[in-house]
C-alpha cells in the first residue's frame, strides 16, 4: 500500500480518505462563508479532524483505485513540516495496515492521533518513546499546529528528526565519496556562487545535485541564441560584461515563480502573488507590489529623466560639434553668459559689462529667441554707442524707434531680421540728429527707395560702413549711383541677396575711392566688365573682396592680379566660368601678400552628361590649388574649397606632403572634393597642427581616419549615418 504513494516524504499518517476530505471542507467552513448546516455537522470544538488549509499551503491529493489509498500531502511552510497523509478506507471495515517499515521507524506516526480520529482503527500502535506531553501554555498558532499538538506531534521534534535524517544521509554520502576518492561537490572550487535564496531542508548531496543541474541549465542557456541576443542588448546599454553572471541572471529569471504563483518578497519577506509585472529587487528576487512602488518612487524620476535627456544630450553634442565647440567643460565666461541669459528676466541692468560681452549676451539671447521688447531695454543704455540685435524678429517698429530715443549717442547699429525696421522707423531716424558710422541691416525689406535716397543724402557724410542684406524689391541702381556723391567716407560696403541691382548700378561702386572691404552678391545676372571696372577703381586699397554668384570670367582674376596688393580675404563663389589656369595665374607671382581667408566654393565645372571630364579646365582645380597654397599657405587661416571637384588626389598629396606645414590653418572645408581619402585627411591633420575643424561631407574615400586630440572632423559618410566615434586615444571627435 505504501508503494502506491508517489510521495517521497518519510513521515506518514493513515487516515480515512473521505474523513480527510470532509475535514478539509470542515476547516473551510470555519471561514466567513460557511453555512450553519455544515457547522452543525462538524462543530468546531469537536474532537473530529479539522484541517485548516490556508491559501499558502499546498494540498495535493492522489487516489489510486486499486488499493483504495488516498494520499494527501500538506506542506506547511511556516513550520517546515512535510507530512504525507495516507488514508485507508477504514470506514468500510478494512483494517488499516501500518506494517510498512518506513512507518514503523517514523516517530511522527502517532497512534493516539489515529485512535482519536473518527474512524475505526483495529490496530492501535504503541506510543513512541520520544513523544512529549502536551504543553499548558501556548502562543497563537495555526489550526494545523493545534491539531497536531493535540495528537502529541510537535514541530521541534519533527525538525530534530529531519536534521537527524539529514546528518545520516550526509554521513552516508561522505562515506561513498571517500570510497570513490571523488572530490566533494561542496568544495570551495565550486565555480558558481550559491544563489541568493538558499534552499532549506536540503541535504548537501541534494544541493550538489541541484547545483549540477543548474550548471547544466546555465551552460544550455549560454549556448542558446536567445541568450546571445539578450546579451548584446545588455551590452549596449548596461555593463553585463561577465558572461557567467549574465547567464546566471538569465537562469534565475527563468527559474522565478510564474505569474499567479506565490513568492516571498525579497525586500519585506511578505508573501504575495506573482504577476507578470512583478519587479526584481537588487539581489534578483521578486518584489511585492508595495516594495515595487517604493522602489519605483525612489529611482523612477531619475530613470525616466535619463531616458528623455539622453537623446537631447546626443543632439546637443552633435550640434556643438557642428558649431565647432569641442566637447568638454565650457569656459567660465560662456557659463556665466548662459546663466545670465537663462535669468534675463531677473536682470535690471548689465552694469559695466564690456561691449564685447554685451554683444555675446545679445547673440545668445537671440539664439534662444529671448530678445523681446522687454529685454531689448537691457541693451539700450544712454551713452552706449553700439547696439547689436542678432534676431530682431520679435521687435516692433516702436522698439526700433526706442533704440534711437534711448541711445542718442549711437554710432554703430547692427540689426538682423529687422523686418519691422521700416519707413516709419527710417522717418524717425532721419528726423533725429544721430549720425551713424555703421549701419548693418538684415531683412529690412519695407524701406522704400525714396527713404534710402533721403538716408544717403542726409546721413551719408559720416557713414563708414554700410551693409545691407535681403531688401527684396528695394535698393537698386539709383541708390548705388547716389552713394559715391553722398558717402565719401565709406570704407566698407556689403550688398548681398539683392534683387534689384544690375550691371549698370555696380559700376558706380568704382568711384567709392576709400573702399577697403567690398562684398557683392546680387541676384540679377551680371558679367565681368562692371567688376573689372570696380577692381581697377578701388582694387589697390581693397583688403576684402567677395563676389558671390557673380558670372565673372578670367578677366576679373587678371584684374585682381594686376590691381590688388592688399587683399587678405578673397571670396569668389558659385562660378562655372573661371578656369583653373586663370586661378593659377592669379596666385602665381602675385604682388599681394599671402591671404588669410580664401573661399572658392562651387567654382567648378558641371556637366550631367559627362560628370567626370573637365576638358576646358573650368573651375578651381589642381593647378589653382597648388598655386594658392604655394602663395598663401603660410598665413591661411580659413580655407573653403567645398565642391571644387576637379582637384586631383596627386595635387592634394603634393600640397599636404610630409615637408609641408600650414601653421595658421584653423578651418578647412574640403567637402565634395572627390579625390579626398583617408590618407589625404591624415596628411592634412599632420600638415596643419592648428587645424580645429575639418569638414569632409560627401568624400566617400574618407572612411576610417584617426582624428588627433582636440580636432573635429565633420561629415564622415558612413552606412550608419550620423555617428560619433572616439578614436584609439578616445581624443578626437567625428561628427557625421
Amino acid at each position, binding site marked *: 500500500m505504501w508503494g502506491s504513494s508517489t510521495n517521497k516524504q518519510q513521515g506518514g499518517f493513515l487516515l480515512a480518505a473521505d474523513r480527510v476530505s470532509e475535514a478539509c471542507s470542515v476547516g473551510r467552513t470555519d471561514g466567513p462563508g460557511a453555512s450553519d448546516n455544515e457547522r452543525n455537522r462538524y462543530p468546531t470544538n469537536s474532537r473530529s479532524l479539522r484541517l485548516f488549509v490556508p491559501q499558502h499551503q499546498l494540498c495535493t491529493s492522489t487516489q489510486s483505485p486499486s488499493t483504495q489509498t488516498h494520499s494527501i500531502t500538506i506542506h506547511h511552510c511556516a513550520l517546515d513540516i512535510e507530512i504525507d497523509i495516507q488514508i485507508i478506507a477504514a470506514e468500510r471495515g478494512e483494517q488499516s495496515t501500518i506494517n510498512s517499515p518506513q512507518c514503523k521507524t517514523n516517530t511522527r506516526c502517532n497512534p493516539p492521533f489515529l485512535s482519536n480520529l473518527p474512524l475505526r482503527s483495529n490496530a492501535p500502535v504503541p506510543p513512541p518513546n520520544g513523544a512529549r506531553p502536551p504543553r499548558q501554555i501556548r502562543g497563537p498558532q495555526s489550526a494545523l499546529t493545534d491539531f497536531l499538538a493535540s495528537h502529541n506531534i510537535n514541530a521541534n521534534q519533527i525538525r530534530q528528526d529531519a536534521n537527524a535524517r539529514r546528518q545520516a544521509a550526509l554521513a552516508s554520502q561522505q562515506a561513498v565519496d571517500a570510497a570513490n576518492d571523488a572530490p566533494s561537490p561542496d568544495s570551495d572550487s565550486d565555480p558558481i556562487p550559491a544563489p541568493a535564496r538558499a534552499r532549506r531542508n536540503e541535504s548537501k548531496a541534494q544541493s550538489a545535485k541541484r547545483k549540477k543541474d543548474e550548471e547544466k541549465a546555465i551552460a544550455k542557456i549560454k549556448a542558446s541564441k536567445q541568450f546571445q541576443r539578450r546579451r548584446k542588448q545588455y551590452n549596449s546599454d548596461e555593463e553585463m560584461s561577465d558572461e557567467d553572471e549574465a547567464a546566471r541572471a538569465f537562469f534565475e529569471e527563468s527559474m522565478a515563480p510564474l505569474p499567479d504563483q506565490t513568492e516571498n518578497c525579497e525586500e519585506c519577506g511578505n508573501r504575495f502573488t506573482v504577476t507578470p509585472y512583478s519587479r526584481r529587487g537588487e539581489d534578483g528576487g521578486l518584489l511585492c507590489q508595495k516594495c515595487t512602488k517604493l522602489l519605483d518612487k525612489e529611482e523612477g524620476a531619475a530613470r525616466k529623466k535619463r531616458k528623455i535627456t539622453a537623446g537631447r544630450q546626443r543632439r546637443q553634442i552633435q550640434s556643438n560639434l557642428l558649431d565647432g565647440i569641442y566637447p568638454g*567643460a565650457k569656459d*567660465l*565666461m560662456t557659463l556665466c553668459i548662459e546663466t545670465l541669459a537663462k535669468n534675463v528676466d531677473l536682470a535690471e541692468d548689465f552694469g559695466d559689462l564690456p561691449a564685447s*560681452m554685451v554683444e555675446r549676451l545679445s547673440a545668445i539671447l537671440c539664439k534662444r529667441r529671448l530678445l523681446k521688447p522687454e529685454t531689448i531695454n537691457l541693451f539700450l543704455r544712454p551713452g552706449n554707442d553700439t547696439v547689436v540685435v542678432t534676431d530682431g524678429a520679435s521687435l516692433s517698429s516702436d522698439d526700433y524707434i526706442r533704440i534711437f530715443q534711448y541711445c542718442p549717442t549711437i554710432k554703430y547699429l547692427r540689426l538682423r531680421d529687422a523686418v519691422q525696421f521700416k519707413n516709419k522707423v527710417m522717418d524717425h531716424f532721419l528726423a533725429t540728429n544721430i549720425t551713424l558710422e555703421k549701419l548693418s541691416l538684415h531683412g529690412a525689406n519695407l524701406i522704400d527707395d525714396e527713404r534710402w535716397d533721403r538716408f544717403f543724402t542726409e546721413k551719408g557724410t559720416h557713414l563708414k560702413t554700410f551693409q545691407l542684406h535681403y531688401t527684396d524689391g528695394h535698393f537698386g541702381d539709383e541708390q548705388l549711383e547716389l552713394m559715391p556723391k553722398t558717402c565719401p567716407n565709406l570704407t566698407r560696403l556689403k550688398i548681398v541677396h539683392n534683387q534689384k541691382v544690375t550691371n549698370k548700378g555696380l559700376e558706380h561702386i568704382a568711384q567709392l575711392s576709400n573702399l577697403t572691404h567690398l562684398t557683392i552678391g546680387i541676384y540679377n545676372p551680371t558679367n565681368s566688365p562692371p567688376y573689372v571696372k570696380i577692381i581697377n577703381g578701388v582694387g589697390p586699397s581693397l583688403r576684402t573682396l567677395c563676389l558671390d554668384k557673380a558670372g565673372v570670367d578670367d578677366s576679373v582674376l587678371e584684374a585682381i592680379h594686376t590691381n590688388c596688393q592688399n587683399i587678405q580675404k578673397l571670396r569668389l563663389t558659385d562660378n562655372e566660368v573661371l578656369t583653373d589656369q586663370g586661378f593659377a595665374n592669379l596666385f602665381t607671382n602675385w604682388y599681394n601678400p599671402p591671404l588669410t581667408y580664401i573661399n572658392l566654393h562651387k567654382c567648378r565645372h558641371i556637366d550631367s552628361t559627362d560628370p567626370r571630364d573637365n576638358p576646358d579646365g573650368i573651375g578651381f582645380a589642381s593647378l589653382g590649388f597648388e598655386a594658392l597654397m604655394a602663395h598663401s599657405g603660410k598665413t591661411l587661416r580659413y580655407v573653403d574649397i567645398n565642391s571644387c571637384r576637379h582637384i586631383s588626389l596627386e595635387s592634394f598629396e603634393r600640397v599636404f606632403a610630409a615637408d609641408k606645414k600650414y601653421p595658421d590653418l584653423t578651418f578647412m572645408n574640403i567637402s565634395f572634393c572627390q579625390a579626398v581619402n583617408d590618407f589625404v585627411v591624415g596628411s592634412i591633420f599632420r600638415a596643419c597642427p592648428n587645424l580645429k575643424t575639418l569638414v569632409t561631407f560627401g568624400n566617400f574615400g574618407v572612411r576610417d581616419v584617426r582624428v588627433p586630440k582636440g580636432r573635429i572632423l565633420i561629415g564622415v559618410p558612413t552606412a550608419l549615418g550620423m555617428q560619433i566615434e572616439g578614436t584609439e586615444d578616445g581624443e578626437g571627435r567625428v561628427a557625421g
Partner: protein
Amino acid sequence: MSASSEALSKYVTLISSDGFEFVVLREAACISGAIKRMLDPKNAFQEASRAQCKFEEINGIVLEKVAEYFYYNYKNRNREDVPDMEIPPELCLELLMAADFLDT
C-alpha cells in the same frame, strides 16, 4: 625662492580684495590665461616668485566661485558630456566681469 623651484610648486595662492586666500592647484589655476601669464616664471612678475596672485577687483565670494570653477574645469578636462556648473544668478554679472578679467 628661485625661479626653478617655484616652477615646481604645486599650489598657488589667490588672494581676494577682502583678504580671503584660496590655495589652488597650479595646473587648475592656469586655465585662466591671466593667471597663467602672471605666474609664468619667464615674465618674472612678483606673483611668479611668490606663487600668489592678489586681485584687487575680485571679492572673496566671487573668487571662491572662480576657484570652484578652476577645479570643475580641471576635473572635467578630458571628459565629454560635462554637466554645467551651477552659477547663482546674483553672482553672474560679477563673475562674468571676473571671467573677462581672468581670461577664462
